[in-house]
């Protein structure tokens, strides 16, 4: 299913893979982490990070995690405005770069997850979509994200790789809008992340995109420069990048860098 596909289609991560040692240290240092911890995370991480947050609090009595979920871009905006963030987890590297450029990062960003593209179609795949090529068909109404949005950019790249030229009826502003269009039956197909297909449950089906054509999104995480609670922050980042963290993330359809 989509997990495997995501996993198997993993390409080399620009920021280099995280070592399991940090993961270990994560579990060891965890005990020292106390106090309040504020995590700014991309909206697409909502469920997975909520669970990780719970784990973290379990492992670190006296620590309390507060999340601020929003679009990666909005989060960067807020941090650059002096938001009280300890940790920033972005859904793409572009936004992370905005942060580092602004010098708001306390350490080097680490990749903690990857997300591959999939084609989402309505239940039962009425139009019999099998791959990107089918999206170019006349009678197929499909949507992607706008090139400004990471997934939109990746989709474009994927089409290039596949040598397919197809114009969507709409360039959505975020990936969930694509999901909504398809699950509500307004569009026949859309290009989204594996995680989104999983989240859509029985309202949508995923059509894998061959590795050759696929593009992968990298999820970087970092402790902010102005982090009010650096120790806990580090501990949380360690947890996310640890093996346990990876397992949790995989449950939600993420792949490992």
């Amino acid at each position, binding site marked *: 299913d989509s997990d495997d596909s995501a996993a198997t289609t993993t390409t080399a991560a620009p920021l280099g893979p995280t070592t399991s040692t940090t993961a270990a240290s994560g579990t060891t240092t965890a005990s020292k982490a106390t106090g309040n911890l504020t995590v700014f995370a991309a909206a697409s991480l909502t469920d997975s990070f909520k669970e990780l947050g719970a784990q973290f609090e379990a492992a670190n009595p006296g620590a309390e995690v507060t999340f601020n979920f929003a679009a990666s871009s909005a989060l960067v*905006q807020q941090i650059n405005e002096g938001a009280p963030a300890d940790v920033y987890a972005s859904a793409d590297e572009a936004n992370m770069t905005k942060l580092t450029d602004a010098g708001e990062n306390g350490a080097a960003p680490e990749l903690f997850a990857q997300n591959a593209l999939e084609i989402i179609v309505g239940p039962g795949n009425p139009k019999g979509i099998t791959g990107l090529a089918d999206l170019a068909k006349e009678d197929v109404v499909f949507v992607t994200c706008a090139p400004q949005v990471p997934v939109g950019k990746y989709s474009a790249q994927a089409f290039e790789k596949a040598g397919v030229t197809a114009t969507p009826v709409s360039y959505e*502003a975020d990936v969930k809008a694509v999901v909504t269009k398809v699950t*509500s039956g307004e569009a026949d197909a859309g290009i989204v992340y594996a995680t989104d297909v999983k989240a859509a449950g029985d309202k949508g089906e995923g059509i894998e995109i061959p590795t050759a054509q696929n593009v992968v999104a990298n999820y970087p995480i970092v402790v902010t420069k102005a982090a009010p609670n650096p120790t806990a922050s580090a501990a949380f980042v360690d947890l996310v990048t640890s093996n346990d963290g990876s397992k949790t993330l995989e449950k939600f359809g993420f792949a490992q860098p």
Partner: protein
Amino acid sequence: MLGLVLATVAVAFFTLPLVGLLVRTPWSSAWRLLTDETTLQAVRLSLICSLWATGLSVVFGVPLAWVLARVPFPGRNVVRSLCTLSMVLPPVVGGVALFAALGRRGLLGHYLFDWFGIRLPFSMAGVVVAQTFVAMPFLVITLEAALRQLGERHEEAARTLGAGSWYAFRRVTLPMARPALIAGAVLSWARALGEFGATITFAGNFPGRTQTLPLATYLALERDPSEAIVLSLVLIGVSFVVLLAMRDRWLDAAVGRRV
């Protein structure tokens, strides 16, 4: 005096953020963006659609306001509430609701599609529909209040002169409520112009077809906030001009002092 003080504070409260925006505007890159084709398309589309939405709001909203203010019937309060709920719908949900009604699989929409092949979503018409949906209530509420404030005595006089209540409304009451009508139209227009959520959900985002200025702005924000600022300055500029056109005398009721 208290009144003036409060008013001044209010003005400051509105002005400061705008000034802030100007301060942060990257004037260097501004020009390139302003002359960018897609930007101009977006501006054009925004204006056309918002004006359409305003027009429809007036055409349908005025009679609705009249009914709510003048025609007593059981459950009038319920109807009023129903017709104003779209104001509070969170952006995206508004779009979802429209799908449910007018989408390809929607209650009414699938007839439109199956029988006439009409598909509102992803079309300019869709944008207008979405904007009208969220904008009309502002006109309705404003005008209804004005009508109630006017009272019915002049209408009574008109009726004794042989005017049906609708004719009396059009010839006598509505002109007396002109300030409220204009205000309501402006509110609707402003709301339509700034509309984002319902539009992008229901009509999608296709440059030149359904990409209005707010959508363009939102996307720009994804890449570079300062771009977004420039775009919204365009939006601000446009509406500033229109609002300025709403001169005092337009707002003034024709009814002056009775000597």
